[in-house]
């Protein structure tokens, strides 16, 4: 057992980056030895203890919560013993280790327009951890074949795939962690010309800039260039509705992919996932095995994905449009998650439903142990999302509030 102690959060952040790098190189490889795996777990466990101690010391809001529960760092040896802070705390309190003058960026969550939004504060360092967590897990699920991609299409070198992003650009919504995440992956993987095609109405709601989208779709088809479309579930519904009503459905070139994320939240009509997938296939020609769902929230720095895009660009068109029953979501190896019973807080058995808790190591400068408001079913590996616990936030009698995405 290592005995090294890290004395500051930036040091832990450095350790995290190394852990991420080694996890992606190590455990993901089929040749990874059991010894290497257990080394990664040991490093994780060690970091957890240190990270909790440092967050407890530097995050006043979290500390008060832990103390009210009678928890302190001393006896903690495992992530499951750490108090999981309800994400609702991000609405009420400054859940951060950053001092006020260090908070250069803040992400707001899906709050309601009238209710207080969640606030997850960041600075350059914390964004670095955030991005360090976003990129490898995105690449693993959306671009598993990225490194070999160039030579594959038509035998010649190719530019990276174009992205079409259905959120407004980060400059228009600096408080959206989703737009930021899309910007991070676009910067890493796509040509700078890849557009953000969302716009913001005066009431703050998001909608699509349809001409931009049509141009991007037509170009992809005309130049036979695969397109990666990234957006919220409701933006895909809006897009599909638009294409259907205008008789403008397209069949994007093979290798095109879609990433959909985060529920509907009353924004457009909602629909079951398999129906959404069929609609995407029908209007954009992207088969179900090239549609990936992501789960994330502004309070977290890591994301879960429910599948890996089909490798290769010459996928058969007849690939199933409807995803396998219950594709399981997985968070990356530098996190831990569990589903607990709302009755007694204990972990549920596989097959049972409960509340999702996530220990996100990449939340270095805020709080790592978070209890979400989402219901999930525990599967043998990973989990299936079932949506938000109803009435989680007391709201007086006001109903039908407009929600804004994370």
């Amino acid at each position: 057992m290592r005995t090294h102690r890290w004395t500051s959060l930036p040091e832990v952040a450095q350790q995290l980056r190394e852990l991420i790098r080694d996890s992606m190189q190590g455990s993901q490889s089929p040749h990874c030895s059991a010894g290497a795996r257990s080394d990664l777990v040991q490093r994780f466990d060690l970091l957890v203890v240190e990270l909790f101690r440092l967050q407890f010391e530097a995050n006043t809001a979290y500390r008060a919560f832990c103390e009210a529960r009678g928890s302190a760092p001393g006896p903690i040896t495992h992530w499951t013993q750490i108090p999981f802070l309800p994400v609702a705390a991000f609405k009420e309190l400054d859940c951060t280790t950053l001092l006020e003058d260090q908070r250069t960026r803040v992400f707001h969550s899906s709050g309601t327009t009238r209710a207080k939004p969640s606030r997850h504060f960041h600075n350059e360092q914390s964004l670095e951890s955030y991005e360090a967590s976003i990129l490898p897990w995105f690449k693993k699920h959306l671009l598993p074949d990225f490194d070999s991609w160039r030579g594959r299409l038509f035998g010649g070198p190719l530019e990276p795939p174009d992205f079409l992003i259905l959120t407004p650009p980060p400059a228009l919504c600096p408080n959206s962690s989703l737009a930021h995440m899309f910007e991070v992956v676009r910067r890493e993987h796509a040509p700078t010309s890849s557009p953000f095609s969302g716009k913001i109405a005066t009431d703050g709601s998001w909608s699509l800039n349809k001409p931009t989208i049509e141009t991007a779709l037509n170009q992809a088809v005309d130049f036979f260039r695969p397109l990666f479309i990234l957006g919220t579930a409701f933006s895909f519904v809006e897009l599909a509705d638009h294409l259907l009503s205008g008789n403008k459905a397209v069949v994007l070139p093979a290798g095109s992919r879609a990433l959909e994320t985060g529920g509907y939240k009353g924004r457009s009509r909602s629909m079951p996932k398999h129906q959404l997938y069929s609609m995407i296939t029908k209007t954009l020609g992207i088969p179900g095995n090239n549609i990936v769902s992501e789960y994330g929230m502004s309070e977290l720095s890591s994301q879960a994905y429910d599948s890996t895009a089909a490798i290769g660009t010459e996928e058969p068109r007849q690939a199933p449009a409807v995803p396998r029953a219950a594709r399981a979501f997985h968070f990356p190896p530098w996190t831990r998650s569990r589903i607990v019973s709302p009755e007694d807080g204990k972990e549920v058995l596989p097959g049972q439903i409960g509340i999702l808790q996530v220990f996100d190591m990449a939340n270095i400068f805020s709080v790592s142990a978070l209890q979400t408001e989402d219901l999930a079913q525990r599967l043998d590996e990973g989990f299936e999302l079932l949506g938000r616990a109803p009435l989680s936030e007391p709201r007086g009698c006001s109903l039908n509030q407009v929600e804004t995405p994370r």
Partner: protein
Amino acid sequence: MNLPNYFFADLPPDASFSPMLVLDACHTLRRNRERFLSPRSTTQMIRLLAALADNWTEPDFPFRKFLLAESPKETGFSPQTLASGLDSLFKSITIDSLTGLVRQELGHDLRLDEMRGSEETHTKSAMAVGPELMVHVTAGNLPSPGIVSIILGLLLRSAQFIKCSSDHPLALRLFAHSIYDADPKLGACLEVAAWKGGNQICEPPLFDQADIVTATGSDETLESIRRNVPSKTRIVSHGHKVSFAYLSRDAMSGYKVRRWAEGAATDVAAWDQQGCLSPHVIYVQEGGEVNAGKFAEMLADQLARLEQLEPRAPLPVQESAAIAARRSFYEVRASHSPDTLQWRSPESTAWTVVFENDPQFQISCLNRFIYVKPVLDLQHLLKHAELVREKVSTVGLAALDDEARLLAHQLARWGVSRVCRVGKMQTPPLAWRQDGRPVLTDLLRWCDWESGS
């Protein structure tokens, strides 16, 4: 207990209905009413209904025993909670209360039987006539509103088609069977069916046949029913309502406080807080011997005690998750501010008391989740309940007699339709005017007879 296949609700759950089946049932109901129900007198009906209600309070009554034995699976309530709810309900149905109801509503015991004048004039008489066919659409798993509807319908000698919730139809089904068992000819004037609300195959033809439709449910449910009911047909609907309690300063002293806490706990626990009469918030006036925070603690003790006697039903995970999420929210608040405190059942979501030093009315997530809040006085309270003003049903009061009269007056002016003592919120008398509306006269038709020359 083997129930005969007598009602639609006795058929297997996957049985399908056709419009023709519904129409046939309605025609049979009307015919049977004409033969078996119309000829009976009010006195006969009252005796029969009171005897039936009395049977339902007997622990050995087979229908009651069967219902309790099938709980909570088939009813959504623990057997103890259900038994307690049934007792309060059926004890309120007696010869006296039924006679009193007819007198209160119609001015004379015999107005449903013959032309009757008032005391002052003999030249002007009137008679009340019940509808031939009533259709009841009952919502949720609370059986009491449906049972009362059936009793009122029988009192008015109406044939009745009861559409109950597809989740928990057993209570109404058994109540109808108990009528059939007591008097098969009366049972022949009832039909009970369970299907998912909004069924477009059965509901339009059913509503088309009805002389009157009574409905309870959410605003959305009621709106969708209204769309399917022909304009000629009267609808008596009761939307979702909320209730709260107010404990005045003078009541918050001495040995009585404990009794108020017991009463408040009874109000919260009854029907697992599912009814419109269940309190969401208990307001405590400041300045008494026992303050709101202390009262919240006493209430928590009482809820813990009640949980032993009348446990809350097991919940679907979505509902317990709603409680867990709300508890988390207040746990965060409580860890930072003395203005919020929380008491909760250990290792379960059975009951929760949240004290908040903020008078704003708050909708509870129910299932025995109650807020306790301090206020300066009733005016202060009403100012902070303005958002639900149109939606308040009952206010439970704890106050000395003179003050109680004054408070009830203020509440009546503000828009409340029922004021009672804390501890009695869930046990309204039979003649209670729900939503401030008459009990019988909304359902029937008058015939005036001007006999003078």
